[in-house]
Structures are given as C-alpha cells and as structure tokens.
C-alpha cells in the first residue's frame, strides 16, 4: 500500500491554503478595502474638501500634541519604574510591577471615568473629604493636558515593558567589566547602562505614541465635552452625523491615523533592529545596585505613584458608584448600592450589553484559538518562504489602532456580501469578525511561543507511531500547548471584553457592548451607574490578571505580556 505523499513535511496539504485564506480575510481584505476607498476618494477630489477643513487640521494638531505629551508622561512614568525596579534593590518588586501593569489593562473609558471621579467640582470623593473645588469651576481634565496625562498613565506600562526587556537583555559582562575597571555604580549607570538601554526607551516611546494616537476612550470622555477632537473621536463624530460623504471622509481620516501609526511602528522596528528582546530574555539577572540609605525614599516614591495613578482613581470610582447621584456628597448617610441594583437587576440594557460582550469575547477567544493553533503550527513548522510575510500580515491588524480596523470593516460590509447577498452590517456578526481580525495577533503569540518551545521530535515520534495530522493534533500537540492556549484565551477574552474602540463604530440597537454601554451611560449623564459598571469591569480585569499571573510559571516565556 504505497501511499504517495507530498514532501517530508508534517503539514497536511490543506493547511497552507487554510492559513492563507485566514490571513486574507482577517488582514488583507479589510485593510486593502480601506486603502482602496481612501485612495479612490482622494483621486475623485472628495478629499480636498476634507483636507481644506480647518477642523481637520485642528484635530490633527490636537492628536499630535496630546499624543506627544502623553508619550512624554508615559516615558517618565514607565522609564522611572523600569529603571528603579530592574536595576535597584527595591523590595516588593513583583507586586509593584504587577500593580504598575494594571492601568494598561483597565479599559481607557474606565480610566477616564475614575479620574473624573477624582477631580473636579462634582467629585464624590473630594466632597466626602471636603476638598472639592467650588461648584461651577471647570473640570481640569477636560483639556489637552488632562488627555495627555491619562494617555501617560494608560501607556506607561508599554514603556516599562520595552525598557525592562532591554535592561534584562543587557550583557552582564559589560556591567561587570565596567565595575572591575573601577567605575562607581553611578558611573556604570551613566556610562554603560543608560546608553545601552536607549533603544528600549525609544522603542517604548514609539509604541506609546502609536497607542495614544489610536486611543478612543480617553478623548471621547475627556475631549468631546471640551470641544477637543482627536482623529479617532473626529471619525466617531462624523460617523454619528451620517452624511453622503461620510465613508470617503472616514476612510481618509483613518488613513491619516494609519500613517501616523506606521511611522511610529517603523521607528520602533528600526531602533530594535537586530535585537529580538523577546527571545534573549536572560534570567532577569541584571546587576542590582544598592541604594543604601536612599532605598526607603525610592520605595516611598514608587508606592506614592501607584497610589496616585491607580489606588486614588479606583477609590474615586468606587466612591462615585456609591453616591446616590452625580454631584451629591458621599457620606455614611448617603451611601447607596442603588447603582449596582440598577445595572445588575433593573436595566435590560446592561443585561444585553453583558450578554453581548461575554458572548462576543468567548466566541472570539475560543474561535480564534482554533484558527491560531493551526496558523501557529504552520508558522513554526513550515519551511515556506511566505512565513515571514504571513506573520507580518497577522500582526498588522492588532498593531493598527482599533478605529482604523473598525472603519475598514464598515467599508467592507456596508453593502451586502456579494454572491450570498446577506448584509451583516449592524448585526453582532460584524463586531465578531472585527474582533477576530483585531485580536488575531493577541491569540497567536502565546501559541507560537509554545510551538517554538516544543521539541519537534515529540511530534515526529507520534508520526512514526502512525498518527496522522488530526490525531497528532488531538493527542500530542494540543495537550502540550494547552497552558499557552489557556493564556491566549484569557488574554483575548480580557481585551475583547473591555474593548470600546471597535464596537463604538460597529454597534447598533441591541448589539451594544460593555464598553459602549459605559460610554453611553456617561454620555447621557448617568455617571454613577457608569461608575458602578466600571467597578465591576475593574474587578473582572484584576481577577483575570491574577489568574494569568498564577498560571505564569507553567507558561513559555513571553506569553504573559507583563512578565519578563
């Protein structure tokens, strides 16, 4: 029974076409469609009207200035934390590192709400302690500075991770050699470590900038009331005031965002060229400098920062959620859980949003896993020369701001799908597909790391045992990558469940998500209900991060994004 098979490789014939189809549908098709519409409307002269609108340039300016100052804030915060926690003998590093990661994982609209609850004349918290500014004084966060500050808080962890990875990858002997040649700790830091860690700084700053440019939740809540529009919120407002030129306009606007992001990502790629910091990841044995008498001061500073950027806003958020109404002072007499009753029991809208977000996130997390296990297997095992292109194409949708992707899917599905003639526009399916595209890279990365780590002979032994591809997948491969697959599911679930940017453009009646609901509640003045919902979201985020943290020991390196 000679059964000829093509080549000695272990993949079934259908795997390559499958992977290509997936990448085509989730990456090439939407982005290609966006590019086509953008270029076409630019040629038809439709763009000239948009481009001559001073509002657009005002918005570009606001986007750049908020993102720039946000980047500076992120570099100061994240850089300081990374240097102190990585290089010095600070106590409680693991806990500090974990807490510092939290603001990034908390959805931006929740961050914005909690900071609003902490400042301004209506803050329940400030009123409770009698520090609220007089009524009628402005909310200081409704400004360029406020937006930039929150961008900084939200994205500081990106700089932290990038710089920390660079510091951990520093050649130890360079530091030791400098010390042996008589340099003091301070000189080693100044002459060896800081120059060598500059790429980490620069790369972190570049990703933080890209993340700021694409942020929607923060400028939507802080900017729109003050008439400040960044490019993502400008798209949102143009889309809300739907007109005949909307599609052309938003495709050009998201093209602008995409260009800004690509510039940022290219800067990152350039400074990191030749350094795969995810692979090097030494055992974290960077030289530890002694702070001596200064240690308590540094620790105080770190904990104070955590208190200011994390604890205070969350306390304010809880306080707002317990106040009977926005602006009413919180005291033992006025504390009420009415807001929680409202969202958990009374309002149908919350139930629908919960159901939507949970089912979308679960479907995305598990559905993507099926796709990414196969794609990851292909990427690691294949000798095809397309592997590089395919993994790059898989990364792009997640690297681009969600708003760009949302616009791409609107353009793609605004008309009924050709051939079948069904329209998914306005249904939950368009959100699901956009999630698949957007979080593909999130789901793929842990799986790919796990496959990389797998000894190929484990699979080869199964082949010689007579097991075909499906059999091997079920008996050998999937059980062996299961921990990473679990992490991938939790990560995708966590991100999808808190996501606002994509669904803000794609939702319609009956398909609102948790993110959209929080935003709409705040927009319609139900601040304490929005705060209560946010508290639940924060609890969920923390629970899942703790779960991942507990799994981390059994996972390949690089799977849990905040551990290095």
């Amino acid at each position, binding site marked *: 029974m000679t059964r000829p*098979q093509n080549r*000695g490789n272990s993949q079934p014939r259908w795997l390559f076409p499958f992977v290509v189809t997936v990448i085509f549908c989730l990456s090439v098709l939407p982005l290609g469609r966006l590019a086509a519409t953008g270029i076409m409307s630019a040629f038809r002269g439709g763009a000239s009207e948009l481009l001559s609108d001073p509002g657009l340039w005002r918005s570009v300016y606001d986007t750049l200035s908020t993102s720039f100052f946000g980047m500076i804030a992120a570099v100061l915060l994240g850089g300081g934390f990374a240097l102190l926690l990585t290089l010095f003998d600070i106590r409680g590093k693991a806990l500090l590192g974990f807490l510092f990661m939290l603001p990034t994982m908390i959805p931006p609209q929740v961050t914005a709400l909690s900071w609003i609850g902490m400042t301004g004349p209506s803050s329940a918290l400030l009123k409770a302690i009698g520090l609220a500014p007089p009524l009628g004084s402005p909310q200081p966060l409704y400004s360029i500075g406020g937006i930039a500050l929150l961008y900084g808080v939200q994205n500081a962890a990106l700089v932290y991770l990038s710089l920390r990875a660079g510091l951990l990858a520093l050649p130890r002997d360079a530091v030791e050699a400098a010390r042996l040649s008589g340099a003091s700790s301070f000189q080693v830091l100044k002459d060896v470590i800081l120059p060598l860690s500059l790429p980490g700084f620069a790369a972190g700053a570049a990703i933080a900038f890209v993340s700021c440019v694409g942020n929607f939740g923060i400028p939507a809540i802080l900017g729109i009331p003050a008439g400040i529009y960044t490019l993502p919120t400008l798209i949102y407002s143009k889309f809300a005031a739907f007109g005949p030129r909307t599609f052309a306009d938003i495709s050009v606007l998201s093209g602008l965002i995409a260009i800004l992001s690509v510039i940022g990502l290219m800067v990152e790629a350039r400074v990191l060229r030749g350094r795969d910091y995810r692979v090097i990841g030494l055992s974290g044995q960077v030289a530890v400098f002694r702070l001596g008498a200064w240690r308590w001061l540094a620790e105080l500073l770190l904990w104070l920062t955590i208190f200011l950027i994390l604890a205070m806003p969350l306390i304010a958020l809880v306080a707002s959620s317990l106040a009977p109404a926005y602006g009413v002072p919180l005291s033992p007499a006025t504390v009420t859980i009415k807001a929680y009753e409202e969202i958990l029991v009374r309002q149908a809208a919350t139930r629908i949003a919960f159901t939507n977000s949970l089912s979308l996130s679960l479907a995305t997390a598990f559905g993507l896993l099926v796709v990414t296990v196969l794609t990851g297997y292909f990427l690691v095992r294949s000798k095809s020369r397309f592997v590089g292109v395919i993994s790059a194409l898989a990364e792009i949708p997640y690297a681009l701001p969600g708003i760009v992707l949302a616009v791409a899917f609107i353009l793609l599905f605004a008309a009924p799908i050709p051939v079948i003639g069904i329209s998914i526009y306005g249904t939950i399916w368009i959100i699901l597909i956009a999630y698949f595209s957007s979080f593909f890279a999130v789901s793929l990365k842990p799986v790919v790391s796990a496959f990389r780590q797998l000894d190929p002979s484990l699979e080869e032994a199964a082949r010689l045992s007579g097991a075909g591809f499906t059999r091997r997948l079920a008996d050998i491969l999937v059980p062996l990558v299961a921990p990473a697959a679990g992490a991938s599911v939790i990560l995708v679930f966590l991100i999808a469940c808190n996501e606002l940017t994509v669904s803000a453009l794609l939702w319609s009646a009956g398909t609102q998500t948790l993110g959209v609901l929080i935003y709409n509640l705040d927009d319609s003045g139900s601040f304490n209900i929005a705060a209560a919902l946010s508290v639940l979201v924060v609890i969920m985020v923390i629970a899942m991060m703790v779960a991942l943290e507990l799994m981390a020991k059994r996972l390949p390196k690089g799977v849990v994004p905040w551990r290095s």
Partner: protein
Amino acid sequence: MAKLILNRLSKTFDLGGRAAVNDVSLTVREGGFLALLGPSGCGKTTVLRMIAGFEQPSDGSILLGERVLADASEMVGPEHRNMAMVFQSYALWPHMSVAENVGYPLKVRGISGEKRERKVREALAAVHLETHADRRPADLSGGQRQRVALARCLVTEPDVVLLDEPLANLDRHLRQEMEETFREFHARSGATMIYVTHDQAEAMALATDVAVMSEGKLLQVATPEEIYARPEGRLVGGLVGQGAILSLPSPIGDKRLLDWPVVQGILGNRQEGPRTDILVRPQDVEIAAEGAAVTVLSVLFEGERYALRLALPDGQTLRAFSRHPVKVGDRLAIVIRSAWRL
C-alpha cells in the same frame, strides 16, 4: 519484513549548496544491525531521517523490499512506514504516563483493551520497567527514559528500528548497560536496526555491520572485524582503532598487509617517489633493540601500561605501548610487526 535498500541517495538542503548526503548506496539485510559511523556533521542523521520519512531525498530512492518508500518525486509519510525510532532526546510525551507512551502506537492502530495492556506489559518487561508503568516520564532517570523509548519501539513489531545516537546523553556506566539492552532488543525483536553513532567503539560492540560516512559520502560498509582489519582509505583508517597513518614510499607489489621486512625496507628508503598511506596500530609496534630509531615525544601512564607517542627521524609520529617506564626524549628502537596499506 524485507531488506532495506538505499539507492544512490542524496540530499541537498534548500539553502546550503553542498550536499548533506551524497550518493549513498547501501543494503541492510533483513534483521541486520547496521551502525552508521562518522564524525559529527557528516550526514548520518540526515540519512536516518530520510529512512524514517521526515526528509525527502533530493535524488535516489529508498526501498523496503519491493516497495519504494521515497524518491525525489514521491514519498510514503512516516505514518505509513511501520518504522520506529529512538531519538537522542528520547521524545517521550510528558503528558502521558509510561504505559500510555508505550501504548500510543497501538492506540493509533486501533488496538485496545486487554490486548493492548498485555503488549504494553510485555514491552515494559523486556526493558525491565514493569514497575514503572504509571509514572510520568519526568519522574524517570535518563537511562529509564531511554528504555521507555525503546519499549515504545518494541511494542508494534516494526520493520525497521532507527536509533539516533541514543547513548549520547547518558553517562559511561549507563552506556554499557544500555548497549546490552540494545543487543537483547535486537535478538528478541528480529527487526532491522540502524544505529547512528560517532563512537567507533560503540559501533563495533553492537552492530553486525558498520557503514562509515564522511562529508555526506559512504566510505565503506563491512563487518566490524573487516572494518577493523581492512579499512579502506585514510578516513576510515583514522576513524577505526587508534592507529597512526604514516606516509611512506610505496612498497613494491600490491600486497596490503605488510610485515616487518617490507616495512623496514620502506622506512629505510630515502628515494623520492610515489608515496602511500600506511596504517600502524599501537599494539603492532614492539620496542626491540634491532628496530628502527625513534624519539619519545610523550608518555602517558594508563595503569596497565604506558602509552607512548614516538617520532620517526622525518618527524612523522606513531603510537606504541610499553610495559616499562620511559622518559620523554629517550631514543628507542621499534619493530612494526604488521601494517596496513590504506
């Protein structure tokens, strides 16, 4: 079962221009135990992986009896070859118990229940691991893991068993024990075995046939005794035994086994002329007053004897043993009782 035939087998990997395996032809008789011997990087693993079906030949073919397993255009996947392999890294599945590891090939073949249990028990008994059936691979020592891997090969009665440097990760004491286990395994299973190693002592001790490879080419295939006594060419001569290779004027005639009078003749020959490689093994070198003059370069005490490195007047070196201590720089005379013309 049938004999395994490699017919002008070649493999060039896509990137590197040089062939990793170059025109290798070889027949392994049914039930034979062939050792594939050669220095690291010479293409042994590549040959083995082509036999297993993990790599496709760039040229030539592999046959098992009448059946073509692979050529440059088509190949039977490893799933359908009824072969088994012991990997250098053992390749035990960490999420399965020892019994599940051993029983997996049976499970894939749809054998279940009492029959599978019995076969697994037998295979584990053959490698003396009956009592470890429920352990996880992680709880076993290196030697035990290797034996589990062997039991997994035993369980399906494969046509061909492939072993890729299976002892490389074990310490010397365990190696001897495992060599015994392999020999037993071969006798019991009657499978055709191909054993890759870079250790000539291991190859000699285990195999019924030894194939010597270098830089992708097959140099010689013969029984261990034959390879030892009649190596072909400089490379094989240098690889097998601890002989020294001297470049000396060609003796007259085509006799290859040279005795002392012939060797003495060519050692004394000062004329320019064609030269030949002559293999001289240390046990054939005798220290005797009437012999050729040499200088002692180094002396190593090995316990039962002294191992010497000696220099001929023209600077070429050879090795010899001595029962009595000698000093570096001493001048001695030696007789070469027998030498082999390569």
